[in-house]
Each structure stands twice: as C-alpha cells, then as structure tokens.
C-alpha cells in the first residue's frame, strides 16, 4: 500500500511517500503506526506521540482502530491548520 506523509511527520521521516507491505499481524492504523515506529529513529520520532497523529485512508479521515486491509493509500499527518 502507498503511504503519504505531511507536515512535520514528513519532515521527521524524511520522505513524502513510500510503498510498504506490512505483515499479517498489522491490521489497524494504530498497528501500522507502531510497526512503522520500529523501523528507525526517524520513524520513531515521527510517531512518538501517536495520539497526536491523524490518519486518512483513501482520502477519508479514519480512527486509529480502522482496518487497513484493502487500503490503496494511507496518509499520516498532524492535526490540521487550514482555513
């Protein structure tokens, strides 16, 4: 699946996007964040306060317990400041 990163999440990880293939046990958005956080210090830093990170699956806001199966695109970002 395609992952997108925005704002300071993007800055901390050092990537705007990537493709990942998480293992079977990674079923929810929260699981995915925890799995990504283990990759290296940059990912750990980006996801150190998971409660603050928002996610969207295929352009729709989702909660941390949302299932990721079948997702085409998952985005992670800080709380929004538009308008």
């Amino acid at each position, binding site marked *: 699946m395609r992952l*997108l990163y925005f704002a300071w999440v993007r800055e901390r990880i050092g990537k705007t996007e990537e493709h990942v293939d998480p293992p079977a046990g990674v079923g929810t958005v929260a699981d995915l964040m925890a799995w990504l956080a283990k990759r290296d210090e940059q990912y750990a830093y980006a996801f150190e306060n998971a409660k603050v990170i928002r996610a969207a699956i295929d352009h*729709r806001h989702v909660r941390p317990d949302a299932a990721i199966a079948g997702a085409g695109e998952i985005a992670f970002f800080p709380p*929004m400041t*538009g*308008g």
Partner: protein
Amino acid sequence: MTTTIRLQREAFDVAAEVERMTRGRTDVGAVVTFTGLCRANENGQPIAALTLEHYPGMAEAEIARHVEEASVRWPLMGVTVVHRYGRIEPGEVIVLVAAASSHREAAFAAASFLMDYLKTRAPFWKQVEAAGGTTWVEAKAIDNAAAERWSSPPPRREAAK
C-alpha cells in the same frame, strides 16, 4: 445549488467569485461572504509569510463532503469555497467561503459551519516564516470546540407567534 470548490496557489478576486455564484439569479435574497486573511503576526510575533501545505485530492474531497452536508442542513442556492496553498504574505486572502440562500439564517449558518470544518478537517498545514526561522502552526482547541458545536442537532425553532 451553484457549487464552486477550488484549490489554487494564486491570489484570486473575491468579488468576482461571489458575483459568479449569484449571476443571473433573482431568487437569492442573502449572500454571506467570509474571507480569511494572513495576519502579520502569529502568537504575538511578527511573521514574514505563511506557507500552506495540503493533501491534493483529499482536500477537495473533504471540502466537497462538507459542502454537501451544508446543502442538506440548510436551503442553499450557492456555495463557493476557494482555498489557496503555497506561500502567502500578510494582508493576502487565504480562503473564501461564500453561501447564498433566499434568507439570511441559512447563509450565515452555512458559512460559519463550513469555516469551522475547514479549520479542523480540511487537510492543510500552515508553516510560519519569521525572523527566528520556520515553525509549524499548532491546531487550536478553540477551533475543535467550534467544529464540535455543529455535531448536535440544531435547536428546534419555535413557531412564529
């Protein structure tokens, strides 16, 4: 309902957008226009500019979903939302939300509703460019509280006496 939703880098003409929304219509009795501008300060510090990052595709989709919700909640004849991204300097318009209806209650409520949701659910992120460097603006609790007030059903109106 005449709907315009646009994201763009360039500055735009507010009056022209509003005129386009109501052109030719004689049933519109109320137009409420909100413009959000870049201030020259953030948290008491002077700033040189704001830079807005956004999520292309989702930003348009999310705005469209809320415009659709507004059209279900209130009798609207037109909605225009134009939101800039990229580098914006103090004094410049960042966002326009305009709503047209036959009477003012729907127009005021829809514009307010759309702005409260734009502040909290539209995927944009502001970065401040100031003397000390570049920092990300933090989301404000007051904006979340403003959006939440639309979650409960609107109060029942008393019949006119």
